[in-house]
């Protein structure tokens, strides 16, 4: 029964990934960054003496910064894991053989994506002991914690799909890598930039007499902030900020819903393109 649902590419990729030294060095780097941050934060707040107080609000602050940092790490690592998924097979001349097996394009693409997702989940899980420190000091509800992790999952699947798509449509891994990091920078940085530009322009175009009032900004500016992963984490942790943004734009569509719709759409489109383009030299994609 299990064999019917097993994906050979997934099993092979997991085997290869967990035998590679770079997987463990990557995991070590990830945990080291988190450790340095948590230890540094605790030391600063306890004034390097170990005798200072650490209030639940401080713990919440640590959780917030840790969440944004972890989102940043996930976004930084995901392209590295997925952007070479297909192009590396092509460069190593293993793709043609794989394409002559009876596996469908969908099976191959999903297998490649899942192997990266599984490794990223392992990274998140490996970081849980550090998160447990937050619970030790209180200030964070389990629901917030679970919500944040679900958003990580959605984000890493979406960026993973972008990586797989570029890896399929470009011939070289380096090109795919650059394109995927470009997309990641767009989502994490350029959207924030567009948001601030939009807010500034709308502030400037507002009536001088109304400067005291909150200037409503356009749905497109709201869209830019809605698809920004950093903004999502902040508005999830500080719901009052989300409410303020919604009231200003006058749209009663929470940021997290826009975020989910956008990233699920991105995932679906990227996986569709990757599946269609995997057997690019064949008219039929079977």
């Amino acid at each position, binding site marked *: 029964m299990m*064999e019917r649902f*097993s994906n050979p590419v997934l099993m*092979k990729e997991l*085997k*290869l990934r967990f035998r590679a030294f770079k997987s463990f060095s990557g995991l070590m780097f990830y945990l080291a960054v988190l450790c340095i941050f948590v230890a540094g934060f605790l030391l600063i707040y306890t004034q390097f003496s170990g005798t200072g107080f650490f209030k639940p609000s401080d713990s919440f602050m640590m959780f917030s910064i840790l969440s944004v940092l972890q989102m940043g790490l996930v976004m930084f690592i995901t392209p590295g894991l997925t952007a070479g998924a297909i192009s590396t097979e092509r460069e*190593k001349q293993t793709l043609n053989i794989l*394409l002559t097996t*009876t596996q469908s394009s969908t099976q191959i693409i999903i297998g490649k994506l899942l192997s990266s997702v599984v490794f990223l989940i392992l990274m998140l899980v490996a970081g849980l002991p550090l998160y447990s420190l937050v619970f030790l000091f209180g200030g964070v509800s389990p629901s917030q914690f679970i919500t944040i992790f679900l958003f990580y999952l959605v984000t890493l699947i979406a960026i993973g799909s972008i990586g797989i798509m570029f890896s399929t449509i470009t011939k070289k891994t380096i090109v795919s890598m650059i394109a995927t990091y470009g997309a990641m920078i767009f989502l994490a940085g350029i959207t924030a930039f567009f948001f601030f530009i939009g807010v500034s322009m709308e502030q400037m175009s507002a009536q001088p007499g109304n400067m005291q009032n909150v200037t409503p900004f356009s749905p497109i500016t709201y869209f830019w902030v809605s698809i920004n992963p950093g903004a999502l984490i902040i508005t999830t942790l500080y719901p009052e900020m989300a409410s303020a943004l919604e009231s200003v734009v006058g749209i009663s569509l929470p940021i997290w819903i826009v975020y989910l719709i956008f990233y699920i759409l991105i995932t679906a489109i990227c996986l569709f393109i990757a599946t269609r383009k995997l057997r690019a030299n*064949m008219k039929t994609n079977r």
Partner: protein
Amino acid sequence: MMVDIQGLTKKYGSFTALDNLNLTLDEGVVFGFVGANGAGKSTTFSILATLLSPTSGDAFINGKSVVKEPKEVRKLIGYMPDFFGVYDQLKADEYLDFYGASYGLSHAERQVLIPQLLELVNLSHKRYEYVDLLSRGMKQRLCLARSLIHDPKVLILDEPASGLDPRARVEMRDILKHLKSMGKTILISSHILPELAEMCDEIGVIDNGKLIAHGNVATIQQQLQGDKRIIVKVIDQIEKARRFFEEDPLISSIELLEDSNSLAFNYRGSTEDQVQLLRKALLADIPVYALREEEKDLEDVFMAITKGADIV
């Protein structure tokens, strides 16, 4: 028939890589595909392996269209490309296990098949070795075992002996002979033409995307009989001999060979005519001590055919 290629054409812009290729092969036939680099062999094989769509035409493997039913075709073929890579971190048995699973074989089936295939390609002793540590010849044999894991009816082997040392080449040839005895239909391309001649039931010569000759080696050689090359050796009087042979209407392109006592010419006559020619030469006091037909191997056949003459 097992392989039926109908009007297969592949164009890349204005360049025609494959031009209206027609070919049929029966079950159990070993077909050697001969042609220069870029002649269209790999393009043909890529289309048959469902990696490439033809611009027009179609090919059928056991009645299944490579264009319309590629997934069905993949079950029927085992493909070995001219250049291929391996996964660094997999062991030989894991390599075969992965491809077995990729063809939908159950774990139990794979456990039975893998030792048998490794035995077939003489790699049982390397079962637990990492694939990237194997020699090139071993990798080629492992790739051949991989192409057999789902017991395909047709094997498509693109230059399976390329880059191998003589010993590895002999080992590969022995394995292919064994596969032939198992009744597999094998399509094989190679630059090592004499090796193909020994092994193949039929050969096809492709040049500039066109199949210019197809048949067994003997048939194709027969097509060249009109141009058979005769070598005559005389003790002396080479100029007299030359004048004598020049007068014969069946002889053309006469030339003096480097040893200065031998002549070579193209002869259009039959074997009986050849006997008469020798008799006449001796009666004319030409001191002929040897007259023989130059043997043509597959290499010569290929060179003669690809000179430009459309024989088929």
